[in-house]
């Protein structure tokens, strides 16, 4: 909650107005900027070591103790087929809520919260992004920045949660 209040205040100062668009928390993976719907974000925390889960796909980094709750952590770079890098002091875990489940995403660094107008969101192009476009809701334009907007439901329920039998076999 605190995160949301804070960010909405910030963006109001930045933009001066509220629009009928949505707010997105943007973060970096390599050179590219990605965004998630701010209402999906529960909190942002610095990277801490996780416990790996046996027999799970590589992008499932492990689990973390988040104030007594066990939260799975997904390495977005691996998920998107990008090379892994050394974690730095900017590496953070974005904790999101997807279909009432809590999950953490490891990203290179978080940047701003952006207001993106509906009219500034275009469908994802078929080529160009380093990402499998099926995980994208669209490409948002905010000022001179282009943001790939992630479809959380698709991204984190697709396969990951149902892979139990496959992984075990």
């Amino acid at each position: 909650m605190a995160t949301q209040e804070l960010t909405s205040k910030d963006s109001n100062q930045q933009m001066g107005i509220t629009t009928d668009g949505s707010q997105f928390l943007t973060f970096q993976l390599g050179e590219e900027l990605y965004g998630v719907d701010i209402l999906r974000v529960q909190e942002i925390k610095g990277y801490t070591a996780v416990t790996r889960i046996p027999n799970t796909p590589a992008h499932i980094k492990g689990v973390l103790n988040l104030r007594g709750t066990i939260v799975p952590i997904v390495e977005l770079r691996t998920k998107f087929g990008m090379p892994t890098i050394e974690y730095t002091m900017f590496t953070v875990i974005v904790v999101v809520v997807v279909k009432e489940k809590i999950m953490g995403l490891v990203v290179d660094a978080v940047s701003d919260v952006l207001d993106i107008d509906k009219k500034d969101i275009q469908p994802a192009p078929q080529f160009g992004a380093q990402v499998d476009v099926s995980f994208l809701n669209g490409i948002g334009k905010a000022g001179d920045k282009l943001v790939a907007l992630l479809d959380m439901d698709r991204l984190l329920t697709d396969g990951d949660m149902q892979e139990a039998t496959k992984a075990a076999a």
Partner: protein
Amino acid sequence: MSTDLSHFKDAFFEESQEHLTTIEEGLLQLEQRPGDIDLLNRIFRGAHSIKGNSGMFGFTAVSQFTHKMESVLDQLRSSQMVVTVAITDLLLQSLDCLKTLIDCARTGAAPDEAHVAALGGRLEACQGTPAPGQATAVPAADERSLPLGTHRFTISWAPPRYLFQRGLDPAQFLKELAGLGTVTHLALDAGRLPVLTELDPEQCYLGWTLELETGKDLKVIDAVFDFVREDSTLTIVDNPVETHPTAAVSDVAKPLGEILVETGVVSQSQLNQALSQQKKVGEILVEQKVATPEQISEALKKQSEGAVPAKKAETPSIRVDTVKIDRLINLVGELVITQSMLSDLGSRFEMSQLPVLLERVAQLERNTREIQERVMGIRMVPIGNAFSRFPRLVRDLSGKAGKKIQLILSGEETELDKTVIESIGDPLTHLVRNSADHGLEPPDERLAAGKPEQGIIRLNAFHEGGSICITVEDDGRGLNRDKILAKGIKQGLIAESDKLSDEQIWMLIFKPGFSTAEKVTDVSGRGVGMDVVKRNIEGLGGTVSIKTVTGKGTTFTLKLPLTLAIIEGMTVRVGQDTYIVPLLSILESIQPKREMLKSIVGKGELVNVRGTYLPLMRLYDVFRLEPELSDPTKAILLILETEGERVAVMVDEILGQQQVVIKSMEQNFRKIEGVAGATILGDGTVGFILDVRGLLNIARQGTAKAA
């Protein structure tokens, strides 16, 4: 405001459940001690509370029905009637009906009016019956035999607006009505009240609906309203279900059947036969072409559906002994004191005070541990709650199966976690049904075998180490080894050449679809159930074992963890990773010598532990980890047991033993094969608890692939 009310309603439903249980237990005991006034009083009080409370919340159907039960109970209490099997039967049936009514009230579903009315009628009918006798199974035709001339009127009356201006008082009318008989129900209709600003205090806006039981007839009631009839809205309904036109014919309040027997028209057996032909309401309605069979089955479906969602609507809550709470409050008080002592010390800490600090931290630790234990204790409830349903179940079963069964309960005070209690209800029911249906022989067979006619089912609960044992024991025929073996081979569960120990054979009955019963009864024998029992118990982290002696009986033993939230575990290390092995499944740990190891091509490795070859499983293989040690003679082997199967699991090192709090993996992720759950270790990181069964499964799939 409305939320407040719903809160009270929840409390009402919860309390009603308790009263229902009290009544049920009471009724069952009543059969053994028919003359026990204390017992009757207790039952009566239960019914009375339900009646009063349900009336308060406007659940008229419930309160009316309970009232009828209460009247019967009252007559029993005042010795106007004598307790017979028939009456307890009827009361138990009514109790079931009442349960359904209350469930309906909770879910808002429509109750089966016809059934309620029929039972209500029978309750009223049996009241008239003086003392003992065959008030038994009151037939439909006899439902009308209520004491002469009793009517139940439903009167709704909205007086004219000008009532007060004529100097009339509505209360007078109500009093007058009450003078004619007993008002069983009175409800105010304030629906016509205008908003306050438009309210004229000299006008009467109110209306009433009341139910009157009286010996007087319609004319007398009608006459009360003579003065105001013209402008009133008045309806008087002579309730058709409970009015009894034939009552005028029979001047005694005896059931028809009884009179016929007395006068020698029919014999008792003829009467019973006739009674057994008595049809269900639905059938009668269909025959009279009032309803189609489809409508009836639709309604029946609704009736059965009504009961299902009710369970979901229940909010889980727990009743805790105040003593437990008081102790906890004391402990929290101590914790606060320790904490303030610590912060006091922290604000002006010098190195010289280090011993004091350590001492206080130790105290904090003691406090925390004790609070943890007490809080867990709150969840502990006596298992008697789960046992309480069985006397009724066994009574019904013995009736259905035509066997005489005595149920002996013991260890009801044994405490265990509420969630465990909730989950063992169904498995236990299956086991008891199984014992009653398959285990115990019919009376003639028992007598032939030189056993007493009455079979015994014994339910016992007791603590054993860190777990709780529940046994279901019968003195029946015992399991038939050859029959089970033959059936197992026939169903392809085992090969003829397989050499099985007795224990392994008994375990066959837990396979899905397995049943040796020659005929399927509606109680059991369909081959579903036992596998569910096993699955449920194992889901709780428990085990099932069987002991049986042919001709002497069978004992099922359920071994369950005391609580689902905390287990005793052994922490082990494999490379960089820490895992927790449930202590219950560990038999021993060894460091093998070279000559103990054997490897078989395609079947994996084996280890010889004192003459028994056990499969060797390398945990790092199964979980694909990087181990520190890959030589078994340098590593540690844990000998684990699950469901009578043993396996040696290889780990790098044993770190220690500790209690771990189980956290769900499924809450935010999904089930992982080989992992029973997660926990938070001392350093705040997550550790996984091994699921021995799952490990075996993975290993099997692995060897299957390799072979």
